[in-house]
């Protein structure tokens, strides 16, 4: 176990096999961490170990392997319960990802919402936190209201207060904007929404890689994220829900494992969390996700946050020296994400050229078209840092960016 005081980047980088890759003959520089984080060897090994030693279906066999797999799977649930400081482990539901978690909740409110009810989302949302609610509104006749942003990309809280009223049933906001990296004042939003008895879901996909999340302190009703952004494998999501709400909404999928009694007339559902985990889940993925947060904890979220902010400040300073470069999303409350454009150069052009230098960035609308429409741009170039990135990599990127600008001007 590493000491919890300092980050030793050299040692940490050894934990990630992919960082040895060459791309186009250059050392890989991975600056697309907001899309997915890379996977440490311990996590990869845990998947190999699962399939090599105790691959078995969970919750249903009396044999030793099934017991081992079940225990490891449920241990992972407890790890996430502690990670998010939830009251009960059954309030942690494993899904296939953030999108699945959001859809599960949206589907759950189909029979609860009535025509005329109102749902508040924000202009900063990822498409996955817009479309499911639009689908819900189409079915129920509820209406969507949108919290606007200002020119810095920050939510206008006073406008949010104006949108709230007795018809507000649900409020959905992301904890951190995927496109801009701005940290939203979710505690204030949750408290204000609760004054109107509205239920709040927070999309934490872009927050959990960078900070400690305490669902009890936040008093949030639902909190969702994906584990592939926190050193886990792809295909596993978390849905935290307060017990009372999870009991109130119906299951999303029907199938094995989620039932209590089945006759051809009617089935009764199992209790939490099984009610929402029909069929054989992503067992190895869930177990490996638990190993992923063990790994994050071994470095320490505070250390991670501190170091990533150092990278953010360093890169921001360097970028702002470039002529005509505009950063979107200006706030003191940011994660290590920078979205920018250079003059009129199309973000795809820059992304394509820096890729030739082995640098992975994200370009385009970033699944957040409403933000791009607000700024009237076709998209941005987004670089996002994780704790295994270095200032030297930022220097290489800045150099590549200069070359790209030269070629494209």
């Amino acid at each position, binding site marked *: 176990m590493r000491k919890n005081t300092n980050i030793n980047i050299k040692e940490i980088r050894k934990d990630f096999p992919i960082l040895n890759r060459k791309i186009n003959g250059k050392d890989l520089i991975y600056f697309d961490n907001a899309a997915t984080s890379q996977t440490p060897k311990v996590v990869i090994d845990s998947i190999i170990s699962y399939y090599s030693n105790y691959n078995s279906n969970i919750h249903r066999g009396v044999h030793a392997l099934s017991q081992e797999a079940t225990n490891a799977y449920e241990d992972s649930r407890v790890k996430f319960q502690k990670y998010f400081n939830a009251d009960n482990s059954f309030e942690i539901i494993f899904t296939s990802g953030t999108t699945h978690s959001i859809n599960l909740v949206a589907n759950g409110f189909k029979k609860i919402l009535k025509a005329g009810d109102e749902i508040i989302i924000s202009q900063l949302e990822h498409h996955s936190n817009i479309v499911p609610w639009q689908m819900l509104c189409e079915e129920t006749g509820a209406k969507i209201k949108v919290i606007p942003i200002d020119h810095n990309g920050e939510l206008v809280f006073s406008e949010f207060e104006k949108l709230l009223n007795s018809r507000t049933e649900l409020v959905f906001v992301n904890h951190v904007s995927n496109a801009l990296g701005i940290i939203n004042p979710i505690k204030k939003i949750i408290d204000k929404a609760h004054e109107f008895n509205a239920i709040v879901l927070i999309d934490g996909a872009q927050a959990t890689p960078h900070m400690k999340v305490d669902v009890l302190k936040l008093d949030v009703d639902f909190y969702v994220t994906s584990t592939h952004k926190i050193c886990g494998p792809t295909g596993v999501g978390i849905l935290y829900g307060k017990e009372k709400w999870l009991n109130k909404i119906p299951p999303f999928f029907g199938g094995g494992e989620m039932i209590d009694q089945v006759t051809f007339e009617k089935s009764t559902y199992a209790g939490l969390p099984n009610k929402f985990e029909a069929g054989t889940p992503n067992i190895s993925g869930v177990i490996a996700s638990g190993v992923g947060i063990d790994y994050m904890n071994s470095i320490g979220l505070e250390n991670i946050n501190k170091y990533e902010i150092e990278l953010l400040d360093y890169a921001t300073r360097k970028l702002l020296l470039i002529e005509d470069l505009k950063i979107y999303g200006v706030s003191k409350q940011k994660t290590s994400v920078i979205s920018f454009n250079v003059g009129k*150069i199309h973000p*795809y*052009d820059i992304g394509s*050229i820096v890729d*030739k230098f082995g640098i992975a960035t994200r370009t385009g609308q970033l699944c957040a078209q409403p933000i791009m429409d607000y700024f009237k741009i*076709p998209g941005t170039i987004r670089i996002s840092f994780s704790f295994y990135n270095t200032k030297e990599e930022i220097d290489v990127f800045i150099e590549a960016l200069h070359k790209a600008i030269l*070629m494209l001007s």
Partner: protein
Amino acid sequence: MKIKEIQEELIDEFAMFDDWVERYEYMIDLGKSLPLIESKYKTDDYLVNGCQSKVWVNAELIDDNIVFKADSDAIISKGIIAILIRVFSNHKPNEIIEASTDFIDKIGLKDHLSPNRANGLSSMIKQLKLYAIAYKTKINDE
């Protein structure tokens, strides 16, 4: 010049370059010589579906030949469509429909493009060929 000959010419031109930087720079230069579409055609109706950046293409029939014009909001896409237009423009619909597209692989263009851009390239070729099919049908009807 026949389509096949223009393709050979392009293959030779790109073979002169040693690395991707020079190929990209050449592609960007070709984009600058692209016959630009009139601004009235830069609407959603003329957009090529399947490109992540915006690429507009229009085709007109002049003396039995199809003449393409295009533009893009991204410089590299503009280079790509410029290459395609140099190959396919000013030819009869049938020639365009029947033309092989294996010069793309011979230039090594796809190796240098991201999967998104490679898909965009295929969409552009499809769009040019669809225009040719549409004009062929129109000519046959008349």
